């Protein structure tokens, strides 16, 4: 009985909080978190319309667009991985200094001394690989659906830029551990760029900040990796999502 009483008191408290001004100022009308939410068509619309989600989602979508087998969620998964990478990346930034040999020592410390450091580092690394994979698969699914056809041509082009930015983000991050794997993988990769006809040496110079990889390259790629490229990709993502909606929502059905 005492239990029931406590439960009732808890319920009353929850009701009290959910009717408070503070609560209602946070959750706009129609939010399922508000007191007295009921599942009505109108409230279903409000959940989206009165919510920051309205920036990403319309109130309604085509029925076939929700079928998992259509998008396979691949665009959404790419985006979600990007968010996870941002969060784990910020965590890593607390423990990382882009200088030599400190960068390498920081990574060692991260894997051994920092609480959850190794786990977060692994999540960041595998998340990055998965993102490259999911973006690539997303592109393939868009192609096989012919979803790049008018009016979506330009969003495909935006997508190609996103693919390139994803690769660059991953590649710039590859150098940061400053170990043998990082140094030589990046050497091989950036040597390819130096074969650019005519401007080869200039391209290479700008890319690695010198005639060969040095600790300066580390700083340069660090800034590109944590600031410049995330900034640029965010802008392109905004355009990408905006175009998905303006082009009439998800394409199809086939």
């Amino acid at each position, binding site marked *: 009985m005492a239990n029931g009483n406590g439960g009732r008191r808890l319920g009353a408290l929850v009701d009290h909080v959910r009717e408070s001004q503070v609560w209602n100022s946070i959750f706009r009308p129609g939010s399922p978190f508000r007191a007295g939410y009921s599942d009505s*068509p109108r409230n*279903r*619309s409000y959940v*989206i319309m009165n919510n920051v*989600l309205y920036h990403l*989602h*319309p109130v*309604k*979508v*085509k*029925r*076939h*667009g*929700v079928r998992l087998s259509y998008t396979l*969620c691949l665009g*959404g998964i790419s985006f*979600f991985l990007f968010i*996870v990478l941002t969060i784990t990346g910020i965590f890593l930034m607390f423990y990382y200094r882009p200088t030599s*040999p400190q960068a390498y020592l920081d990574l060692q410390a991260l*894997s051994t001394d920092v609480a959850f450091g190794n*786990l977060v*580092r*692994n*999540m960041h690394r*595998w998340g990055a*690989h*998965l993102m*490259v994979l999911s973006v690539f698969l997303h592109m*393939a699914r868009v192609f*096989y659906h*012919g979803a*790049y*056809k*008018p009016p979506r*041509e*330009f969003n495909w082009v935006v997508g*190609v830029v996103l693919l*390139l930015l994803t690769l660059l983000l991953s*590649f710039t991050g*590859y150098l940061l551990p*400053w*170990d*043998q*794997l*990082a*140094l*030589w*993988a990046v050497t*091989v*990769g950036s*040597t*390819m*760029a130096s*074969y*650019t*006809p005519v401007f080869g040496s200039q391209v290479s110079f700008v890319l690695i900040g010198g005639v060969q*990889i040095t600790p300066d390259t580390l700083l340069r790629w660090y800034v590109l990796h944590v600031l410049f490229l995330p900034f640029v990709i965010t802008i392109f993502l905004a355009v990408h999502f905006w175009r998905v909606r303006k082009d*009439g929502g998800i394409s*199809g059905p*086939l």
Partner: protein
Amino acid sequence: MADIPEHLLRRSAEAKAKATGRPVEEVLAEMKGEAPPAPAAGGGDAPPAAADLDTLAAETGIPKHLLERSMRARAKAEGRPVPTAAPATATTATATAPRPAAGGAQPAAAPAIPEGVRTQRLLTVVKAGAIQQVKREPHDKVNVWPHLLAIEFVALLVVTFVLIAMAIYIQAPLLEFANFNEQPNPSKAPWYFLGLQELLAYFDPQVAGVLIPGLGLAALAFIPYVDKNPSVRPSDRKLAILIFTFFITASAVLTIYGSFFRGPGFNFTFPWRDGIFFDDLKAILE
């Protein structure tokens, strides 16, 4: 009227039938316009008389046969004889007088309308076109909340769990400190560039390292402007699919080949015979 897909009509008819307690087939027929609507409570306006149809048609610009059909349907629904000839009393079809209380037999009782007053009746609604030239079709739509958001939430959980599981069970590599004087053998680019590195084994570096990726990326971006075929049906775009699949497969094969089948000196190797020369996944594969 726009073509509403059969399955949509049926779903809506089923809902309506459930709500009104009538058989589905009847409601469906009514929706398709094959049967007159069941008598509703309350009556309608008095039907226009046949002779006025010409005038009305001229005034409103609505084809006469449509007016006629609507008139007959109403008469039938309200249980009146279907008018064929013009009752002499009818003066106008645009009655706005107080409705007869019951769907009763008050034909042609259109009240006189004061001189100079033009009345209208809503015959049809023509929707205005949107500012943007969006093709308006009846679409089968569902609410994002809860249908799409629930799926996204599950996808998010799945990805999170997969990622955490990978992070727990696969240790990210950290080799020795970077040493400019000691190049490991083999040295490989990150895996997503290994297809290109593989090409380096066959072509001039300018071709494999710059031209192929550069032109490849440009070609990728230009696909929508080159492929003019408007159809999205796979059976209509065999060539496009063939070409794209060829390149996807080729890059996958080259990448896998470069990752697992290239050993010291970037020479051919069998991963099961000589070991893994792919540092990223070495930890779990060995």
